[in-house]
């Protein structure tokens, strides 16, 4: 297929105003905050050696924390803070999306600004600061009239580095609920939509380049005292910010927000739900690519209104249950626990997306492996791959305990690539998902969990507390409940992992709705 005539480019461009606007907004806010914090700190620290080294060490340590982890850390931190303020002052705030992203990115931007401001000021010829005092300047005048202008190139270099870092790292704020150009990348990676991934990367790179050049223009303008250059640079940046802010004022906040985690099935189901809502005359948007832990808290706080989760995930992760319960008891337990938090469990969709140990059918037959129990004898010579959370999840611990599993090697992989990896023999076994369409595609088989170590993972629709009495919403979603069986979901997931216009989550969702009505 011709890469340029791919219809997904149009889809990508359609999202651009929203994604780019949000990206600029969060980056600018983070940069301004980062500058406002680090600049005075640097000035304070420049004549205090102890403070100076402490600051630089702390900022360097922050820098070594991977961007994604830093962003993820801010979410629970703010959540706790929000709980505190709401219990003390009766004034909560949303720990979701914008705020944690801005704070984490601001922190991230501090090192280059701090370091360059401090070294820039320190690098000034002492003869000049002495001359500044000699002609009768106060320390403040010396700073503003001599030291800062002389250190400006170094300081600006720091600001430019910070800007590029922040714009790049902001793509990682998607999983904590902040829409950004990262939405392209996360969605594209999950649905194997390489057009999206490419588009997101290019857009972020161009944005970073443009901002860097504008800052360079301002810098050169300041240096040669050209009002025109400074004004032009500032004007374009201001225009960029204004354009970024415009849609957020225009957008109505009353719509329903459908959340989706970071994998294909979730994108498709979120599209399906929002199509149903729109069909019922309810305005709906999707918030995609949310982390597994973030999405639940986001629902509790009303940052999103509805999403699909899985009973076993809630049971093990959110409610910290160890061990296993039969399907009915587990569902009842979850329902009761959710009710305590005022969350509505609207119902089950009709399929299960559980973790399962998967291997090529031919190989399993050859080794006479049909259940996980059979696998245990061979595991010592085999390698296993799982997604990024699997080996930290209670299911893995339960599996190991129930069957005495011990593999030669365990590897983490982007979930999409696991199936191909096991099919090609790159690994021997994977911890896949039962509803994944690639199981059939690659001729893989799901090993029997005869000891029921893995809890049931029924797909369930959850509603935010504030939508508890929303009859329209419930009515709109009712037709989906119990109507999506594992075969339908598998085929939908397989379609969504293809390429081409009919593999877009929205297209697959429409196809699903047609299938549901055929029955």
């Amino acid at each position, binding site marked *: 297929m011709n890469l340029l005539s791919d219809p997904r480019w149009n889809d990508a461009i359609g999202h651009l105003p929203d994604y780019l606007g949000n990206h600029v907004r969060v980056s600018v806010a983070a940069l301004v905050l980062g500058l406002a914090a680090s600049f005075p700190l640097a000035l304070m620290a420049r004549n205090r050696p102890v403070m100076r080294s402490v600051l630089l060490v702390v900022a360097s340590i922050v820098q070594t924390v991977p961007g994604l982890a830093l962003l993820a850390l801010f979410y629970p931190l703010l959540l706790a803070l929000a709980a505190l303020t709401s219990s003390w002052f009766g004034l909560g705030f949303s720990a979701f999306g914008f705020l944690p992203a801005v704070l984490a990115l601001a922190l991230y931007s501090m090192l280059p600004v701090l370091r360059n401001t401090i070294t820039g000021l320190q690098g000034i010829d002492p*003869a*000049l600061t*002495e*001359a*500044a*005092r*000699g*002609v*009768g*300047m*106060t320390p403040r*005048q010396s700073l503003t*009239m*001599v030291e800062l*202008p*002389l250190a400006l190139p170094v300081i600006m270099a720091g600001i430019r580095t910070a800007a590029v870092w922040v714009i790049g790292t902001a793509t990682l704020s998607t999983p904590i609920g902040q829409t950004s150009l990262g939405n392209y990348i996360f969605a594209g990676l999950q649905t194997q939509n390489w057009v999206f991934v490419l588009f997101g990367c290019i857009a972020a790179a161009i944005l970073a380049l443009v901002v860097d050049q504008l800052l360079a223009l301002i810098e050169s303008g300041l240096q040669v005292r050209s009002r025109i250059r400074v004004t032009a640079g500032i004007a374009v940046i201001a225009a960029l910010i204004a354009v970024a802010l415009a849609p957020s004022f225009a957008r109505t906040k009353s719509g329903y927000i459908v959340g989706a985690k970071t994998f294909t099935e979730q994108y498709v189901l979120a599209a399906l739900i929002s199509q149903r809502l729109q069909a019922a005359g309810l305005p709906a948007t999707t918030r995609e690519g949310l982390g597994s832990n973030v999405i639940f808290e986001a629902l509790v706080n009303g940052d999103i209104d509805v999403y699909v989760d899985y009973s076993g995930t809630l049971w093990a992760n959110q409610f910290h249950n160890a061990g296993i319960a039969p399907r009915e008891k587990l569902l009842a337990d979850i329902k009761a626990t959710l009710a305590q938090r005022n969350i509505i469990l609207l119902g089950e969709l009709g399929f299960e997306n559980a973790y399962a140990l998967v291997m090529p059918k031919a190989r399993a037959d050859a080794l006479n492996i049909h259940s996980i129990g059979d696998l245990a004898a061979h595991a010592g010579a085999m390698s296993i791959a799982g997604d990024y959370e699997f080996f930290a999840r209670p299911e893995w611990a339960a599996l190991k305990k129930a069957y005495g599993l011990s593999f030669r090697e365990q590897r983490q992989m982007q979930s999409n690539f696991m199936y191909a990896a096991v099919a090609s023999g790159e690994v021997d076994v994977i911890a896949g998902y039962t509803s994944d369409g690639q199981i059939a595609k690659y001729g893989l088989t799901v090993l029997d969990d005869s000891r029921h170590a893995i809890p049931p993972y029924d797909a369930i629709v959850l509603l935010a507390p504030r939508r508890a009495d929303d009859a329209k919403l419930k009515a709109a979603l009712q037709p989906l409940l119990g109507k999506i069986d594992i075969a339908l979901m598998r085929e939908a997931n397989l379609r969504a992992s293809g390429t081409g216009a009919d593999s877009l989550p929205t297209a697959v969702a429409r196809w699903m709705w047609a299938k549901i009505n055929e029955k």
Partner: protein
Amino acid sequence: MSDTPPLIAFSHVAKSFDGGRVKAVDDVTLDIAAGEFLAVVGGSGSGKTTLLRLANRLINPDAGTITIAGEDIARVDPILLRRRMGYVFQSGGLFPHMSIAANIGITPRLLGTPKPEIAARVDDLLDLVQLDRVQHRDRFPHELSGGQRQRVGVARALAAKPHIVLMDEPFGALDPVTRDALGADYRALHARLGLTTVMITHDMTEALLLADRVAVMREGRLAALGTAAELSRSDDPYVGELLGTPRRQAERLHAALSRNGTP
């Protein structure tokens, strides 16, 4: 000169660095009369610059007092003190990011002088140090020769119409002809404006020719102080050596010139 009260008076002033290991200025007592032109000479590291920096409180003495017009400068706001005095830095000390005009006009600007007045003053001073107004006003220090920069340094020191001018080797980078001319010009200016000048120089000849009195510094101490005639009568061997050099040079020069001149 001892009948008029001194304008600048150092009294048992001492300053050391590095926790007392380097005695840069050691028990110096020195009176400078109003209108006097004092040259300070001495070897490298003898404490000349330190003495000058003490006078406008760029540094504070460890011991002793410095008074200006009878007032102890320890009790004067150092910022205001410095704006009242002109200072020419040994290394030039021009601000590289400011134009020549901005450099010269800096102290008046700090004092809040109106802009047109500063501009007029800058032009006068450029004339005074013999730099073409139009050509130099808007240039930057790096676009000037070393000697031109030193003239700008002198102009800057004079900008706020100070009564006292402290100069740290102001003519160091000039060729002998310009140096001599500028020295003479400055001396005339000193007389015309009624300035009191303290000028550090390495060049004994320059000191003797320009100054009313010469102070000789040696290892932080004031080794000798007096007019050229007074110094020539000194029995201090170091002073003798200092004076001997220009004298011998002058004699050799004279001999060389007359040998060539007579048939």
